[in-house]
């Protein structure tokens, strides 16, 4: 049994006191990050990356810390959805639909516990799925040559673009923006500078962390300045927290189905957790029929999106670890972390550095149990955290971002660039242009170009080489479908509106 041997290796790393401590800290920070409105998982992970880097953590420790933050943020997102009717992160939007009505009926505690259990089921099953599927996919990934990788990157942009925006042209612009930024700097093949405009600061290219922190964290500050931090007061009362056994038993099949749906959605490159929670909610709604009370505080309506969302978070790690293609915005940020740590994700990661992969999987298992404990009996602590006012929180986030980026390079140029990206992020989000493709473009642009150029070297400039293997043809078809299909499905897949008071 390969898996058992690998797992025991993983647990031997994950159960060391130091790693365990990092996992607990990560879970705690993550839940806070997820719970605070305006500080989603991508955001939070992005701000923490420069700090982990300067702390000098080794690869495994840093990865354990950040993925615990990632899982924690997925748990925490539900707290503000249920209590404030504000999704703490995008995938938690679906949880507001039934979570907030239930909380208004005076069952806030039940809603929090139920969603916590659903999160646990989703994340637990997804971690098992990751354990089984990732090594298999890693073996398939050996068949990938440069032509296949080029098509795979294209697929990621197309599915992400198709899902992330309501307008395909806008997501294409966002992807091009990221790819265009990635080209700046010294060309890997020829060693000559490209598109730097003679600016010495740009010779190294633009650090993706600068762009990520700017687009996510700094842009958020501008949004809070625009609306003066309104609507972040708790409107519902939270009394004693008890465990609603009846609701949990009633929703057990819902949780299992939603986990499966979420996990599959998460694996698709580019689709991610938002799609997972959305599909899980919609499919449960149609299974339950019209009189099920979805949208008015139904237990199944809380369990389904939370299980789906957390399962997708685990599923999104599969393509990220095996192929180096992130399945969601936050995994894109985690990919940035891997790149900063000089770990190349891909099939060789599983054979060359098994301790990283299996240590990570084992700590995800542990993180899950820690999170269940934190999120059910100790949920009141995090509710307290929600009461931190925006006028303390947002300046604090900004200053932490500045210190983080400054400690990376010590250059004021990067800081100004970060503010520029913040302003850009504000304009883009105002115009409903998704920012995740920009990040993905900056992260993957160099690899995508490399794949194309190596493919052309292999085929001596013959473009048909890009479509020469069955795998690449399949990926091209999937990419085109992923980009075009949402245009026609938009009528069916319309996102439900948020509940208004």
């Amino acid at each position, binding site marked *: 049994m390969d898996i058992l041997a690998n797992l025991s290796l993983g647990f031997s790393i994950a159960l060391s006191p130091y790693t365990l401590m990092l996992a607990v800290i990560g879970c705690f920070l993550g839940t806070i990050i997820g719970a605070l409105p305006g500080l989603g998982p991508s955001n939070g992970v992005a701000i923490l990356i420069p700090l982990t880097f300067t702390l000098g953590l080794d690869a495994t420790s840093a990865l354990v810390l950040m993925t615990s933050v990632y899982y924690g943020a997925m748990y925490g997102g539900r707290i503000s959805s249920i209590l404030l009717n504000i999704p703490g992160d995008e995938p938690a939007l679906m949880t507001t639909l039934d979570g907030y009505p239930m909380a208004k009926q005076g069952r806030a505690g039940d809603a929090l516990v139920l969603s916590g259990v659903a999160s646990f089921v989703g994340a637990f099953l997804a971690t098992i799925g990751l354990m089984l599927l990732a090594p298999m996919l890693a073996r398939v990934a050996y068949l990938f040559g440069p032509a296949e990788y080029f098509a795979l990157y294209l697929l990621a942009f197309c599915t992400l673009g198709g899902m992330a925006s309501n307008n395909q042209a*806008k997501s294409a612009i966002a992807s091009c923006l990221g790819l*265009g930024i990635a080209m700046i700097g010294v060309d890997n093949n*020829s060693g000559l500078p490209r598109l730097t405009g003679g600016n010495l600061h740009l010779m190294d290219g633009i650090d993706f962390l600068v762009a990520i922190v700017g687009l996510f964290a700094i842009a958020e500050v501008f949004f809070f300045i625009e609306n003066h931090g309104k609507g972040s007061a708790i409107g519902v009362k939270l009394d004693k927290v008890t465990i609603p056994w009846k609701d949990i038993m009633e929703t057990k099949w819902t949780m299992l189905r939603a986990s499966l749906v979420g996990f599959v959605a998460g694996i698709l490159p580019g689709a991610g957790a938002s799609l997972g929670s959305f599909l899980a909610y919609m499919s449960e709604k149609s299974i339950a029929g019209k009189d099920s009370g979805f949208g008015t505080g139904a237990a199944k309506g809380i369990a389904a999106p939370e299980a789906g969302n957390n399962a997708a978070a685990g599923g999104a790690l599969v393509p990220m670890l095996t192929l180096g293609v992130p399945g969601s915005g936050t995994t894109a940020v985690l990919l940035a972390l891997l790149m900063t740590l000089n770990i190349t994700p891909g099939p060789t990661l599983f054979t060359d550095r098994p301790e990283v992969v299996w240590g990570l999987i084992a700590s995800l298992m542990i993180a899950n149990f820690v999170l269940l404990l934190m999120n059910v009996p100790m949920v009141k602590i995090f509710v307290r955290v929600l009461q931190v006012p925006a*006028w303390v929180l947002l300046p*604090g986030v900004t200053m932490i971002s500045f210190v983080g980026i400054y400690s990376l390079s010590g250059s004021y140029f990067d800081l100004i660039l970060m503010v520029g990206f913040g302003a850009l992020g504000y304009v883009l989000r105002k115009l409903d242009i998704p920012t995740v493709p920009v990040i993905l473009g900056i992260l993957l642009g160099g690899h995508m170009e490399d794949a194309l150029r190596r493919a052309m070297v292999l085929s001596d400039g013959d473009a048909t080489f890009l479509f020469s293997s069955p795998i690449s043809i399949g990926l091209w078809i999937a990419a085109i479908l992923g980009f075009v299909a949402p245009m026609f499905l938009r009528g069916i897949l319309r996102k439900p509106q948020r509940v208004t008071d």
Partner: protein
Amino acid sequence: MASDRIFGLVVLMVALAYIASATQIQTSFLADPVGPKAFPMLVGALAAISALVLIVRPDPDPDWPVARTFGSLLVAIIVLVAYALALRPLGFILPTAIAAAILSYQISPRPGPAALSGIGLSVGLFLLFKFALGLGLVAFPKGLIG
């Protein structure tokens, strides 16, 4: 309608400028069949086409804030840029307190709490970074302490 068209036009201009500067990229003697120019030009062309689509078929306008809010956003950007420039010569505590206080005031316009949160954040974060996380921050400019 108008904002998408304007944005499309801006993207189109940038894309064309990008393609133009991509044609100026030097190629080395170690040439591969694609070369360093082709991919940037491809990206630029794709962006230009998408921008044209956006100009032809724009979405409805978002709710833009009123002019005064734009003013305060501009102030925020200026404060952040000034903060970026001040961080090295003036040390951590002073610029952070001022910048955080201004941002706090902009989110919730009450001078007292804003000033307090500025000072609190700056001292608190300094202690956290310096002693808990061990980053090498400088509290005050060297000239001040002597």
